[in-house]
């Protein structure tokens, strides 16, 4: 009897041990290191998830230090979570498990779907009370942080896309390097002159519409199309102008041989081997970050940037993405978190942050101006187009829409169906998926 009692004791001790181990594993996150600085009494600690490394991390640290100096009552605990997909999954499970960070950096593109899932804290009232409003930002950036008229985060970074062209190639082909193509017809004509083919291999390729950042979104808007109807809440990826844009992309694919282009694309390198930097492609659509890449790998490259051509040669536009600072649903310190979001998302924090990142663009025009971003003649063009830029529709199925549009583009340029057929099908699929949110 005595021995049996002892064994039951051991049994329960084992169980207890296992559970305490499990619990220790869970709680170590909270009682763990404090990034060196000790926590003083009355201080609130907020957890801040980010995926920044290298100079991005340095800028973030400067910004956090500036915040802590201004708000001694709040301590920010920075936690690195890998960038891209893994981070989303982590955040998703943390929110679902009821133990999310107080603040997180987040691809603004996903605000729509996460807000629809009620995974983000609605900050509309706090922003209103503190006078943080739309007029501070570029219109598209503010729009992308809102879902169904509620604000779910503050935008903080942005980008835009323009046509890069190689001036030396232009001279060589008898084109005026100071007068880059404005209309799509001019672009096509230039592309023909700039392309040098040997058999089915390209020695030099003038232009591939979808290469780099030449997504159908950008071309669709440049052709005057719209992807979303806000009144009906329906996706309009088969807008006649978008169809026109895709038809034009496919016609170029046929002209230059789509299989040969695909061969060129898959052998294209990155970094120093980027085909634009190495002179294999004369024109491409790409984002402002490419300026820094060229400066790093080939500073003497003679190139220019110009808005993406349109059929009319007027009404130039582009599209922009970027990130937002959000408060995930279930944050334990919403008030302190908002203080931090407000600091980072408005002029004060933005100035500190972007001062460290000379090639990046703020979502606040005044900050870009104050930091002299426009002094760089090329970067200036990327900024100048921002007031006319677009963001992708803020819908719960943003990712599905992205995939569908990429698929439609790929099918069409490969000759599997016409632009109309493929975009009709994509539109139908997305709208059907959207029905469940109505």
């Amino acid at each position, binding site marked *: 009897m005595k*021995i*049996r009692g002892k*064994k039951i004791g*051991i*049994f329960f001790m*084992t*169980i207890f041990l*296992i559970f305490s181990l499990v619990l220790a594993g869970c709680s170590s996150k909270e009682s763990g290191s404090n990034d060196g600085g000790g926590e003083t009494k009355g201080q609130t600690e907020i957890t801040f998830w980010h995926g920044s490394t290298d100079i991005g991390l340095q800028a973030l640290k400067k910004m956090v230090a500036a915040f802590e100096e201004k708000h001694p009552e709040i301590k920010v605990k920075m936690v690195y979570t890998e960038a891209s*997909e893994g981070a*989303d*999954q982590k955040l*998703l*499970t943390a*929110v*679902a498990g009821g133990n999310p960070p107080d603040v997180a950096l987040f691809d603004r593109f996903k605000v729509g*779907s996460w807000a629809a*899932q*009620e*995974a983000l804290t609605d900050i509309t009232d706090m922003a209103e009370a503190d006078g943080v409003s739309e007029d501070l930002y570029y219109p598209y950036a503010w729009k992308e942080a809102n879902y169904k008229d509620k604000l779910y985060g503050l935008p903080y970074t942005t980008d835009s896309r323009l046509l890069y062209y190689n001036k030396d190639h232009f001279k060589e082909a008898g084109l005026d390097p100071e007068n880059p193509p404005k209309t799509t017809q001019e672009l096509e004509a230039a592309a023909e002159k700039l392309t040098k083919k040997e058999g089915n291999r390209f020695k030099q390729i003038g232009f591939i519409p979808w290469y780099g950042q030449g997504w159908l979104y950008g071309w669709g808007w440049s052709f005057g199309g719209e992807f979303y109807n806000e009144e009906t809440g329906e996706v309009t990826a088969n807008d006649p102008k978008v169809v026109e844009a895709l038809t034009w992309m496919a016609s170029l694919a046929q002209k230059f041989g789509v*299989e040969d282009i*695909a*061969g*060129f*694309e*898959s*052998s*294209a390198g990155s970094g120093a081997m980027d085909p634009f930097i190495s002179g294999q492609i004369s024109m491409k659509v790409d984002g402002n970050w490419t300026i820094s890449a060229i400066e790093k790998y080939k500073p003497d490259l003679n190139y220019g940037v110009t808005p993406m051509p349109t059929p009319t040669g007027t009404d130039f536009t582009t599209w922009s993405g970027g990130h937002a600072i959000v408060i995930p*649903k279930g944050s334990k310190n919403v008030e302190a978190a908002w203080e931090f979001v407000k600091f980072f998302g408005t002029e004060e924090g933005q100035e500190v942050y972007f001062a460290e990142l000379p090639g990046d663009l703020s979502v606040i025009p005044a900050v870009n101006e104050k930091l002299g971003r426009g002094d760089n003649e090329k970067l200036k063009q990327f900024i100048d187009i921002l007031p006319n830029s677009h963001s992708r529709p803020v819908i*719960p*199925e943003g*990712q*599905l829409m992205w*995939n569908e549009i*990429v*698929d439609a583009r*790929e*099918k069409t340029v*490969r000759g*599997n169906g016409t632009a109309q057929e493929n975009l009709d099908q994509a539109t139908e699929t997305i709208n059907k*998926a959207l029905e*469940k949110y109505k």
Partner: protein
Amino acid sequence: MAEVTKGTGVQKSIVAKKKKKYSTNSNLHGWLFASPWIIGLVVFFAFPLVASIYFSFTTYSILQPGEFVGLKNYQELFKDDLFWKSIYNTIYFTVLFVPLSIIFGVALAMMLNMKIKGMAIYRTIFFLPTLVPHVALAVLWMWLLNPGFGLVNGMLDMIGIQGPNWLGSEIWSKPSLILMSLWGIGQSVIIYLAGLGDIPEELYEAAEVDGANWWQKTRNVTLPLLTPVIFFNLVMGAIGAFQQFTLPYTMTQGQGTPANSLTFYVMHLYDNAFKFFQMGYASAMAWILFVIVMALTAVIFVTSNRWVHYQGK
């Protein structure tokens, strides 16, 4: 001395006493030692497994509980073009890869079973690729198969063949993936080698006495006696092939490009679960995969009676 004897005497009596107790309490001990594993199994495996059956009948999105919709997810799946495309891709891969991996695996194992000096080195070389993480393997092969500067097309060029655009073409992307996957058969080769080692030497001697040549020995001794191992690798290979994920996911950055020719079943499942917030739908997909794999395994098991020979039977 007396002390020691006394000590052992006491110990002996304890051992005797314990032995008696063991017979009644050994179950409890067993459960006790296995409990960490059992708890883990129940909490992290059995529960999610059962839960996912339920979720497959709901619109569960991880963040929202979702509502019960009956068989709607399953019905929707059969209307989903990409679902069929991903099944096609997965079956295409499985049907080609599994037999090829067996043929190459057995052939390689037989070569590595020869009595040659330095065989350990050869065996190591063929096993090494399986130690490379899949992500690194994907990146490595993307370089090798690059149509412009890749080693593979470079070598084809030397003999006057213009190589295809391996990973960029709809037709060649799956064969390329099969080629890449064959790189990792070292694991099954090890199992074949163990199987080969089990074949009694006297059978070969008897065959030699009967005047059998190399092919007759292989055909009538080696292969029949290797069938249990081939059977094992066939089942494991088929299950593994149906769950193909890391290589195509890494190579196509999750897009399954070109034109979804590399969208495999589990990739589509993953997209639905974690990108489109359709955990219910993804659960339904998971159960369909389970049924397919179970059915396939059952078929292999049933037909195995005809071709698998166990020694001593």
